[in-house]
């Protein structure tokens, strides 16, 4: 069945909400330099200030403006979401499709690797690796992707295997189409919704993962992150500093919720009943 994805998502209220929230967060991140009156990293003498006209969300223990850190933190989160999401989706799709089309020993190696990654609790592995490497943004994206593609690859492979046997692929072969034509004109376009869903899923997971690692204090301390903010805020929770604690938590929730809504909407649209639940 031919689906016009844009039109269908437009009619889906969850999808619309997700898109609006994500757009809002992206806008904040994008215009952060304009919005922020203070540098997000420069400490000041005004420490632990209560929200006021000059510091909308107050300041932290070393006098950094919380609002500035919040919107710059959005940059980090979204960058990692986009980077890790697309990298994971790409690796998963690439390995899944390769396994399905190449078959043989290649398929065996890829799928056994996926199985191994599936049985290892990858959160633990990522924490260990991150604790050891103290990764910056790029390295973090890589780590999340390298330990996150397996479920995705399995789903894509199974779908590609069934697509490969479809009559319209056989028809293209009967017109003399080579493997590359079939891959780019039939298999990848048909897998595209699946790849998009996996992108959204992994983007959400990356946001969560980055914040979690930062919260645990095992990421690069130079990176402005909501997780780090939460961690620091909790250290001072005896001061009743809700203005410090709530904004990063809320921002994190909004971002994750926006991805979740978008993911739900996409799944409803595609209805492949193939939600990537096992990563």
């Amino acid at each position: 069945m031919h689906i016009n994805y844009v039109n269908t998502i437009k009619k889906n209220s969850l999808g619309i909400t997700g898109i609006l929230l994500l757009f809002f967060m992206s806008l904040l991140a994008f215009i952060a330099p304009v919005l922020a009156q203070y540098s997000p990293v420069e400490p000041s003498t005004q420490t632990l200030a209560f929200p006021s006209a000059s510091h909308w969300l107050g300041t932290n223990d070393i006098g950094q403006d919380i609002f500035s850190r919040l919107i710059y933190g959005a940059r980090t989160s979204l960058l990692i979401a986009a980077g890790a999401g697309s990298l994971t989706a790409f690796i998963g799709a690439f390995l899944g499709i390769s396994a399905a089309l190449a078959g043989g020993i290649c398929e065996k190696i890829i799928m056994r690797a996926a199985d191994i990654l599936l049985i290892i609790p990858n959160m633990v592995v990522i924490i260990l690796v991150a604790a050891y490497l103290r990764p910056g943004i790029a390295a973090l994206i890589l780590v999340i992707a390298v330990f996150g593609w397996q479920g995705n690859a399995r789903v894509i492979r199974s779908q590609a295997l069934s697509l490969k046997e479809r009559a319209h692929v056989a028809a293209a072969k009967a017109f003399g189409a080579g493997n590359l034509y079939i891959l780019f004109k039939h298999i990848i376009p048909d897998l595209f919704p699946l790849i998009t869903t996996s992108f959204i899923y992994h983007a959400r997971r990356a946001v969560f993962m980055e914040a979690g690692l930062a919260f645990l204090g095992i990421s690069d301390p130079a990176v402005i992150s909501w997780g780090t903010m939460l961690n620091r805020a909790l250290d001072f929770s005896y001061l009743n500093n809700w203005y410090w604690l709530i904004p990063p938590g809320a921002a994190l929730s909004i971002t994750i919720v926006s991805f979740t809504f978008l993911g739900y909407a996409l799944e409803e649209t595609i209805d492949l009943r193939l939600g990537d639940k096992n990563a």
Partner: protein
Amino acid sequence: MLEIKDFNFSYSNSPVLRGINLNLKKSEILALTGESGAGKTTLALAIMGLLSGQASGSIIYEGRNLLALPQTELWNYRWNKISMVFQDLEGALNPVLTVGKQVMEPMLEHRLLSIEKAKEKTKKLFKYVGLPEGFCSAYPHNLSGGEKQRVLIAMALSNDPEILIFDEPTSAVDAITRLEIIKIIKKASQNKAILLITHDLTTAYQLADRAAVMYAGRIMELGTGKEIFKEPKHPYTRGLLRSYPTLSTTKDLQGIPGKQEIIERGCPFQNRCTQKIADCGKKTPRLKQFGGRQIACLRGGIVSLLEGENIFKKFGETTALKGVDISLAEGETLALVGESGSGKTTLAKCIMGLEKPDGGKIIFQGKETKERNKELYKDLQLVFQNPRECISHRLNVLETVMEPLNIQRIGTFNERKENAKKALKNVELSASDQFLGMYAHHLSGGEIQRIAIARALVLNPRVLIADEPTSSLDASIQAKIVKLLLKLQEEKGLAMIFITHDIALARKISDRIVVLLGGEKVEEGPTGEIFAKPRHPYTRDLLKTAPNFSPETAYLKPPKNRPEGACVYASRCAEAGEICIIKRPAIFKVGMQKVRCHLYSRNEKEVLHAVNTNRNHTVSL
């Protein structure tokens, strides 16, 4: 008896006959057929020495070249040794003389007999040709066409010639008279050499010992009469046969494209031939021996496009194809019939290379298809059984029909679009922008089926394998599509393997039928023969179940398991004997068919065994 060597003839420098080599033998009928204008009558008149024009070569009779003889010498031969029954009944008879006198005239003219004896002989001749004696005194206008024809035959026989030429003896008479005349010619042929000129192919078939097919002043095919009309090997002969309605062929009439033109260089038939190659425009083919007959064709007659030898295919435990042979000639339709599960689609997929056969060879256009490249698929196309699935949901009508052209990289975008539109119009679909933008789920089953057909035809393939292409269409559209396919076959020589379970449809469109059952070819033969004389019990049962307006309904037993080493139809066959469950039958040639059934075994014991067992006895397996 009479030998024509390298005979050329032209009227005022326009050649009419070119390079004719023929010989007539005693007690033999040689039929000369071909479209009008082929030069048949000219050849006859040349033998009679009745032509004035430029002739070269020789016509040798009794050791003398008739062409070199002066008219006075020819006079001795004409009517005494060589006589002719003319085509034009009215023109050949003098309206002011009685027919008796006209029959007597040659005898008296050559002073062979006295008047009395001549009268006596005339009466005998009238009796010989089946006319009452009293007709001797009738005038030509008193006689009907058939009677005039008989008078002319009597006249030709009057001096008891050795060579007798009949020019269209049956074209002006009704079917009953035709048979009478055929009988007379046959009787006369016992001690004479007969040259029978006719465009009536059935007369030629019934009478001719040998037959020559002429086209544009040349002989295209020469062979024994029985073979030439049953299995034509020259594209022109096949074209002639296809345009000729008979009760023994069932396929719809097809003509020969184009018209006869004077061609200076190369094969005279090149402008109408569907299997022409570059050489055909350069070299003139001469009659050459090809498998028991002479054919004037640079390609050796109708070429074989596709051959499958001993194709095996297994799916796990089940054997889908048990060594099937298949062949397809240029411009031919082969119907593959049989119930579902008989291996029809698997065979098609094996030929297309979509399934890899486990054994056997597939030869396409003379080359074994081990490695399949893109080029191959320009000429070999398949219409899939389930059109809705074979069209991607992401492609609209235009993209779908253009896809083969995109894959083969033929033409620019606009050319591709034009080709796609043309293909759509050919299958009676709209080519409007609105329709081109529709998607498969917007369309009806019939429309999708036609898009699938258009898509397969957009590459102009030489061979089209169509898997149930019309089964989802209503009858009126089916008729249109089938006519389109036959038209393409007529014009471009499209060869088709038509897979269908609709045997009534197969009857109308196919030249040959292959009946498949349980992965085996159980019967193969010309469509007309299969319908007239189905040999395999399964074919007979299948014919009973074919759609018709008869009040009786036939039922077939449902298929049961088929053990190895037995006949595939043994469990359901009403005629099965013990041998049928013990031994897999070999292929036997019966008439024009090949049948895999013990009933036709040359081994007497096996036949008896199969036939003698109780017919109602059901074989339990």
